[in-house]
Every structure is written in structure tokens, then in C-alpha cells.
């Protein structure tokens, strides 16, 4: 062990430490006890965060017509603790509310430690004349402020279901997604919901230093921590506003829907569901009441029938079987089956109407022969060389699915039903394994039985036929941000499992339907219209009238499906409406005012 020469330095070190400690004590005493400068500042300077809500994107149609835009609206807010005694009666007179309502609102909020220091909504979306009146005298009501915010406005009052609406975000969403705070608006249905993140943009934050009178003392850190708000992007829909408006007009006082698609792009040109409502009803100050009324309406105007209603496709399904029959080697253009007022096999009878017999493939579509498709269906399941009925059925079903049936499109609408192409397992369960035969399921041949389709699926069927074998997923948003930045992810091309050559006889049959078949009233002067009628049996009342079509026959521009509920035979209502729609789109105007008036004025609603 070494000799310690410097042990006296321990004292020096200790003294230095104690001196520094003492300096701290003195300093603490001076700023905490003697000086009251910092106590005052603590109450006077603070940072307030101001959230800047960016403006929500505008929604336009394919030609730039505005469908949804922002409109200024004014809410009256109050911070309870900042309210001084005021003339309650005067304020309530301006607002048009009961004084007791206001005082109760303030009393409740004032007793909650959190709510009393935060802005409280007193009256939302005040009428313009009240806002200007209130602005004059607002200085008499300290603690009250007029808050400007944007609400949605729908200039054409159309396409309510497609566009959807926005509303205050619910508590659950604010917990899941930290972007939202209570009071924010969020898309609740339609495009407003499915494109919420594109439309909303992103919030900005401004940090401000405020004194105790809440007066602005300039930006915190010179604004270095501020975040700019980024405006939402505009959306260009695939809809054609003129066509949409026209379709809604034709469908007034009827229940049903119209879906029109541009075959080459899958762009939905019109998506009409009826009855509909004015979307402005769900934006204004009486929104809650309006919503309740719509919800209680027995005709269900809130339901989007174009995507959510599932109908048996009826005779329009014969197109599907004509295609699959060829692909499975059962049918060819020369295949003939006889019809003696229907299909008879054992105890089973499927009726048919009066027409020449026997018919070939093209004629079977033209005359919509039930017997033809019963035979074809039986042969597909029994004679196409598969070891079991089940195996043959599975192949049939696979082809049906490739035609976009029985599945939900992977598109940009937030809802939609799958329809139904029953699986063989379903029949196994229903009848027992191996205990069902072709005849058991024969009703699917004419689109009855368990088969269900939605209007958008039927329109897509017309589109893929007109394309001779492929379709682009039907979608609603054409471009995001600017009219030329196309919404590529939506433009997925699906090739069906049917060979293109098999479409020609079917298309010829559909042409003959309009020329000399069941839907002569669908013809448009100057355009080769192809179509197919259908009647969906409805156990609850008159049958539903269906029609699918496209035009022109070569180089098609529009494919369409029309369903009119409870209107009987397909050719009566659905075919002329589809025809008017196509004429409107192809010609820009309709030259058959008499048909137009008859369709428009017809009332098929239950009284």
C-alpha cells in the first residue's frame, strides 16, 4: 500500500460539492419562493395546438360534372368555463331554441371537469340569416364562438347510394385509428367511405403560444414543428351524370335498378337504384330525422338494390348455359332440341310458350325456349363424359363463376352481395351424397331454383358477352387527383373460361331477340341492339321484369341490366327502359318521347 500524500484534498472536494449544493439550494429558494415571476408565467404562457382540417376532395363524374362538393356551414360553440353571465333570452331568440334547453346543456357540460374546458357544440349548421345576426352581437356573449366547418353538398341530388355520405366519427373508430378525434367527419357509406383516405387528405397541426387570455403570442418554435394540412384529392367517377340522372328519372315510382357498364373498361356509367332519395337530406341540419324517415320507409330507399338485391336471373341465365353448353361440348350452333309446349320427363314438366320447334342454338335464345335449356342442362350433367353428375356439375359451376357470377367483385364499392351459384356440396347436403341427378337441379337451366344474381353481375354478364369472353371488374372511380391519373388497380382484366368463338351464336341470338324475338321494343334506330329478356319468379307478388342488353353489336359501347320489381313480363318494362338508357348514352338524346313519357309516368309502387 502506497503512502497517501494527498488525503487533505478530500476536504477540498467535499467543500466544493457542498458549495455547489448550497448554490442550488439558494437558486431553488430564489426561483421557487422569493421570485413570483415564474408562478405568473406558468399561468400565462401555454401551447395550444390547432388542428387544421384539410378540405375534403370533390367528387366529379366522368365528364367533370360536380357530384359532391364542400359547402361552408357554421356551428355555435362555447367553452363553458369561459362563459360570463349573458342575456340568455336574446341568444336563444337568435338561435330559435328554448332557454331551458341551453341552460341545461351548459349545466351538464359545466359539471364535467373535462368537458367544461373544451369547446361544446351548442347549435350546429345554423341558418345563414341567424349566423349574420349572431355575428353582430357575438361580443356580448364571451365564451361563445362561431366555428366554420365544411359540410357536403350534392348539386345534382343524384346517385345517393353510390356517393354515400359523411358523418361524425364514432367512438370506436377514434379508438382504433388515432387519426380521428371526436367531432371529426368520416365517410360512412358509398364512395365517401371506400375512398375515405383519399378524400380526407391529411390534417395539419399548428402550435401556437397563447397567454392566459388566450391571445396569440406567435408560433411555437417559429413554426418549425407545424405540419401543413394536405387537401384531399378529387375523385373522377366512372358515372355519366346525365345518364345517371336520366335513369333515376325513368325509374321513379318503380322498385328496381339499372346498371350500365362500358364493356371495354368496366366503368360503371350508371348505377340506379329505386326508390332513391336526395343525398342532400343526409347532409343538412335535419339529417338525423331524415335518416330515421328513410330507415322506416317500407320500400327501403336506403338499400342499394344494384349491389345488394339478389334476384333469380330467369331467362337471362340461358345465355350462361348457351355458353357453358358449347364449352362443355354439348351444344354447337346446329344442336337442336324439340319443344312440345315445354319439357316433359317423368312426372316433371317445365312449361314453355308457343314457338316453332325444333330450335337450334341461336333460335333457342331468340325464342327463349325453356325446354331447350332443360335438355341442354341434362346433357351437360349426364353426357359430357364426367364420371359422376357431381363432377360434371362442378365443371359447369366453375365456368359459371368465371363469368363473374356467385362472387363479389373485388371493386371499390364498400358493399355488395355474392349472389348464388350453389355448390355441389350444397346439393349433397340437401339431397344426400350421390342422391341427386340432373333432373333434380334442372331449374337452374332457366335461372330459377337456387341461382341468384345481383343487377351489377347481370350487367357485367352483358358486358363480357359483348366483349366476346372477357370483362374488366366493374368499378366506380375512374381517376384520382386529376382526370388523367387513372385508377389502375381497378382495371383488372378477367378472361372467362369460355372460348371466344362460342359467343358468336349467342350474340346472334340476342340480336334476333330484338329484331324478331321477345324484345322488339328494345330496338334503337341506327344501332344494332342485342338483348335478352328474363322474368324472375317472385313468391311474394307479381314477377320481376329483367332485361340485359348491349349495343352496338360490333364494337359495343354500353352494356346494361335493368330490373323492375313486380312488373311482370321482362319485355314490358325492363326492355324499353334499357333501350331508352342506351339511346340516351349513344345518341345524347332520346327520339322516342312517347315511350319515354310512358316509362317515366308509370307507377308500379305498392300503394
Amino acid at each position, binding site marked *: 500500500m502506497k503512502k497517501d500524500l494527498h488525503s487533505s484534498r478530500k476536504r477540498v472536494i467535499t467543500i466544493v460539492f457542498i458549495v455547489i449544493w448550497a448554490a442550488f439550494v439558494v437558486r431553488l429558494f430564489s426561483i421557487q419562493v422569493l421570485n413570483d415571476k*415564474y408562478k405568473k408565467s406558468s399561468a400565462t404562457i401555454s*401551447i395550444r395546438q390547432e388542428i387544421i382540417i384539410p378540405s375534403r376532395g370533390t367528387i366529379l363524374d366522368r365528364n367533370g360534372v360536380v357530384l359532391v362538393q364542400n359547402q361552408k356551414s357554421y356551428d355555435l360553440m362555447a367553452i363553458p368555463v369561459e362563459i360570463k353571465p349573458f342575456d340568455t333570452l336574446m341568444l336563444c331568440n337568435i338561435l330559435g331554441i328554448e332557454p331551458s334547453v341551453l341552460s341545461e346543456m351548459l349545466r351538464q357540460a359545466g359539471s364535467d371537469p373535462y368537458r367544461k374546458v373544451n369547446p361544446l357544440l351548442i347549435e350546429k349548421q345554423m341558418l345563414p340569416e341567424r349566423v349574420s345576426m349572431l355575428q353582430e352581437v357575438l361580443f356580448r356573449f364571451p365564451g361563445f364562438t362561431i366555428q366554420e366547418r365544411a359540410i357536403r353538398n350534392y348539386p345534382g341530388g343524384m346517385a345517393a347510394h353510390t356517393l354515400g355520405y359523411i358523418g361524425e366519427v364514432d367512438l370506436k373508430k377514434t379508438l382504433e385509428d388515432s387519426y380521428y378525434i371526436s367531432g371529426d367527419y368520416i365517410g360512412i357509406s358509398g364512395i365517401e367511405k371506400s375512398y375515405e383516405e383519399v378524400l380526407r387528405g391529411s390534417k395539419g397541426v399548428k402550435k401556437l403560444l397563447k397567454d392566459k387570455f388566450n391571445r396569440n403570442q406567435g408560433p411555437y418554435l417559429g413554426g418549425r414543428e407545424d405540419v401543413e394540412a394536405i387537401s384531399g384529392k378529387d375523385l373522377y367517377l366512372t358515372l355519366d351524370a346525365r345518364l345517371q340522372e336520366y335513369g333515376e328519372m325513368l325509374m321513379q315510382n318503380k322498385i328496381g335498378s339499372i346498371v350500365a357498364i362500358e364493356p371495354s373498361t368496366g366503368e360503371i356509367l350508371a348505377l340506379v337504384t329505386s326508390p332513391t332519395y336526395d343525398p342532400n337530406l343526409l347532409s343538412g341540419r335535419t339529417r338525423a330525422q331524415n335518416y330515421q324517415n328513410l330507415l322506416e320507409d317500407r320500400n327501403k330507399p336506403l338499400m342499394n338494390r344494384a349491389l345488394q338485391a339478389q334476384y333469380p336471373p330467369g331467362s337471362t341465365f340461358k345465355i350462361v348455359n348457351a355458353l357453358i353448353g358449347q364449352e362443355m361440348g354439348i351444344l354447337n350452333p346446329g344442336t337442336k332440341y324439340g319443344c312440345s309446349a315445354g319439357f316433359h320427363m317423368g312426372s316433371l314438366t317445365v312449361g314453355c310458350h308457343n314457338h316453332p320447334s325444333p330450335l337450334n342454338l341461336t333460335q333457342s335464345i331468340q325464342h327463349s325456349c325453356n325446354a331447350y335449356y332443360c335438355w341442354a342442362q341434362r346433357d351437360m350433367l349426364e353426357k359430357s363424359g364426367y364420371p359422376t353428375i357431381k363432377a360434371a356439375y362442378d365443371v359447369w359451376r366453375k365456368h359459371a363463376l368465371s363469368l363473374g357470377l356467385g362472387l363479389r367483385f373485388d371493386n371499390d364499392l364498400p358493399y355488395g352481395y355474392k349472389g348464388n351459384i350453389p355448390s355441389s356440396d350444397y346439393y349433397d347436403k340437401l339431397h344426400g351424397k350421390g342422391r341427386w341427378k340432373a333432373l333434380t337441379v334442372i331449374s337452374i337451366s332457366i335461372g330459377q331454383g337456387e341461382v341468384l344474381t345481383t343487377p351489377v353481375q347481370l350487367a357485367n354478364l352483358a358486358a363480357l358477352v359483348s366483349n366476346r369472353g372477357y370483362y374488366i371488374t366493374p368499378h366506380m372511380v375512374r381517376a384520382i387527383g386529376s382526370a388523367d391519373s387513372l385508377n389502375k388497380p381497378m382495371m383488372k382484366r378477367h378472361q372467362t373460361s369460355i372460348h371466344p368463338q362460342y359467343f358468336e351464336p349467342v350474340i346472334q341470338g340476342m340480336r334476333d331477340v330484338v329484331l324478331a324475338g321477345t324484345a322488339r321494343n328494345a330496338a334503337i334506330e341506327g344501332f344494332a341492339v342485342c338483348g335478352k329478356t328474363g322474368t324472375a319468379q317472385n313468391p311474394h307478388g307479381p314477377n320481376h321484369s329483367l332485361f340485359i342488353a348491349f349495343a352496338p353489336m360490333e364494337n359495343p359501347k354500353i352494356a346494361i341490366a335493368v330490373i323492375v320489381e313486380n312488373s311482370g313480363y321482362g319485355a314490358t318494362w325492363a326492355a324499353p327502359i334499357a333501350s331508352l338508357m342506351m339511346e340516351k348514352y349513344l345518341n345524347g338524346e332520346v327520339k322516342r318521347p312517347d315511350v319515354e313519357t310512358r316509362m317515366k309516368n308509370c307507377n308500379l309502387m305498392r300503394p
Partner: protein
Amino acid sequence: MEKRISRGKGLFYNIDWTMVLLWLALVVAGWLNIYSSGNKEGVSEILDFSHRYGKQLLWIGFAVLLALLVLMVDPKVIPPLSFMIYLLTILLLVAVLVIGKEVNNSKSWFQIGGFALQPSEFAKMAISLALARAMSSLTFDIRSRNSQLLIIGIIGLPMALILMQPDMGSAIVLLSLVVMLYRFGMNQVLVATALFILLLALLSFIVSKIILAIILAFMAGIIIFFLRGKTKEIILVSSVAIIAIGFVFAVDFIYHKGLKPHQKQRIEVYVSNLKGVDKDIRDVGYNFYQSKVAIGSGGFFGKGYLQGTQTKMNFIPEQDTDFIFCTVGEEWGFLGSLVVISLYLLLIIRIINRAELQRSQYSKVYGYAVASIIFFHFMINVGMTIGLAPVIGIPLPFLSYGGSSLWAFTLLLFVFIRQDMHRLEVIG
């Protein structure tokens, strides 16, 4: 070779409970304040690991385990391992430069899963151990050039590596070891000169450089007047005066030409604060000012536990790490602050007193190193929050949030406590 450590006499035989209890008091005070500054919505679950107070509880648990582990180690095995630990730390400091995670433009952290470790925190102990080992060797003489170079090397190498991260705060902390070196014979003149230079640099900001130059020249004149005839001394004093005046102007030059605007502003804020003026409180001086506001608003008795407003509204960044003392000051007032800073003084004085009792030079040197480091952290951190020290981001030992810092300081202290249990033996 004695084996009495773990046999019969128990884990805590001969342990200095004063140090242990002071450590415990600080750790508990730290957690209470972390809980308060993290608790903005009222009372909530303590063991909520999504919150920092919940995590800190976990870190404290590990720290206690670490302390117990140290108490189980035979103190005789540590001195021979000193250089090994030191080398390992150097390797870690090199590694962090390569594979470390970049946070705020500096590579100081290892990210292992959800868990971050800061090797520079542990470097303090490794350097202390290495210095203790070097300075307890029989051939060591602090006056010899070789020994001096050895010390400079032991401190300088890790310091350079830490500066490369760059982590200015952790590097500056290593300068605190001068206190320990002073105790063991470092040249007094050297220490005095260093302090003189520091004082001069500070004064050159507060007083105008011309006046400062005149004062220096005047003082030199008086000394020379009394030294009449002693040529050698006169030359010495004159040259010191000239160098000092030159230094004042050099500082001014570096300040105006060499520093970036925000660095300049920071110095201005600090210096004007010393003169009693709060500058740039909306900008560069914001933290500096807000921390004084928080502490100052506490008054004599404080606003009460969990009742602070300044420390809860995000007025102060790093509320539970570098600025944890603001919460103490605001909620516990002058009384609470006095208690906390007194706990530090008591702990440090206790360490020094126990260090003096060590028979082994190794333990003695190590004890002083521990005291110096803890005191320096305390001085800079608390000084910063009350406006006496410039803003240097280093944690307050045992109080600040964070696993690395808590474990590093606990290890640092408990290695000494372990050695102190055997102070009558020469263990190094």
C-alpha cells in the same frame, strides 16, 4: 484466500445500509415522478407496460436483480477483470458506431428487439474500473509522464468513440474524473488553470471583452508591481496575462465565426439567463425557460403530487428523462427539491467517506470515480433545469426514465458497495 463472502454471514453481511437506502430513496422518488409526468388522464394501472411508468417499474425490478447479483460476486475477481471489462466496452463502443440504431442523428443505441441499450452509459463504470486498476499498480506515479499518458489514454479512447456517435453529453461527463484525479495527486496548478480558463470563457460572454482585457491587464499590473525585481516571475505573470487576454479574444472570434447560429443563440440564452434575463423563450430558450417556469411555479410546498400542470401539458420535452427534476420542483416544491438534492449530496459524501476508509487503493480510486461521476451528472442535470448550467442532455442518476441509465448507475454504485463490504482487505 478467504471464502467468507457467501458462507454463513449472509448476502448483506457488513453492507453499508446508508448507501443502499439512499439509492433506494432516489429510485423510488424517480419512479413516482415518472408516473406523475406520464399520467395525464388520472389514476391508471401501475403495471401498464404500454406506459413508461410501467416499463420503468420493470427496469427497476431488473436493477434490483442486478444489484443482488453484484452482491453475490466475489469482490476479488473484479480487479483482475478490470481491463477485460474495459476492452469489452471499447469493442461495444466501436460496434455501436457500426450497427447502432440512429436516433436524433446520433448512433448511441443498440436495438435488440423492443429493447434499446446505450453502451456509453456502461462505459463510465468500465473506465472507472480500468483507472482503479491502473492507479493501484505499484509502478503508477501520477507525476510520471508514462502514468499520465496511461490515464489520458484510458479516458481519451472511449471519449473519442463517444464523440464519434456523436454524444456530446456523455463525453463531457468523463471530464468529471478530473475530480478523482485531483484527489490522487493531479497537479493543482493544472486543475486551477483549467478552472481559470473555464471561468474566463464564461466571463468573456458576460462582460465585454475590452473591459475584461483591461481588468486582466490591470490585475497583472498590480501583481507585477509587487513583484518588482523578480524578472522571472514578472515574465511569467506577463505572459499569462497576455495569453489570457488573447484567449478572451479567441473565444470571441470562435463565437462569432466558428459557431452555427443556433449554437450561438443557445449560449446567448444561457448567458443572459445568468444575468437574470430570459431570452428567446418562444424559440431556442423555450425548454430552458419552461423548465424554470415549471420549477418556479412549484412554490414552497409544491402543487401536490400528480397536480402539476406545466409538466403534464407537454410544455417540456423529455419530461421524464433529462427534465425529470421539473416534475419534482413543480409538484413537490422547494421542500421536495431540497430533500432530493440533499439525498444526492448525502449519497456522494457517504461514498467519499467510505472510499477514504478503503484499505485497497483500487477500491479507493474506484469510489472516488463513482462519486465524481454521480456528482457531475447531478450538477449538470439539476443545474440545467434551474438555469445554472447550460442545456446538456444527460440523465439525472437513478431518477430519469430509462433502463440503460438506471442499470449503469446501479452497477456503478453497487460494485463499490460490494467492495466496501470488504474494505479492510486489500482486494485490488
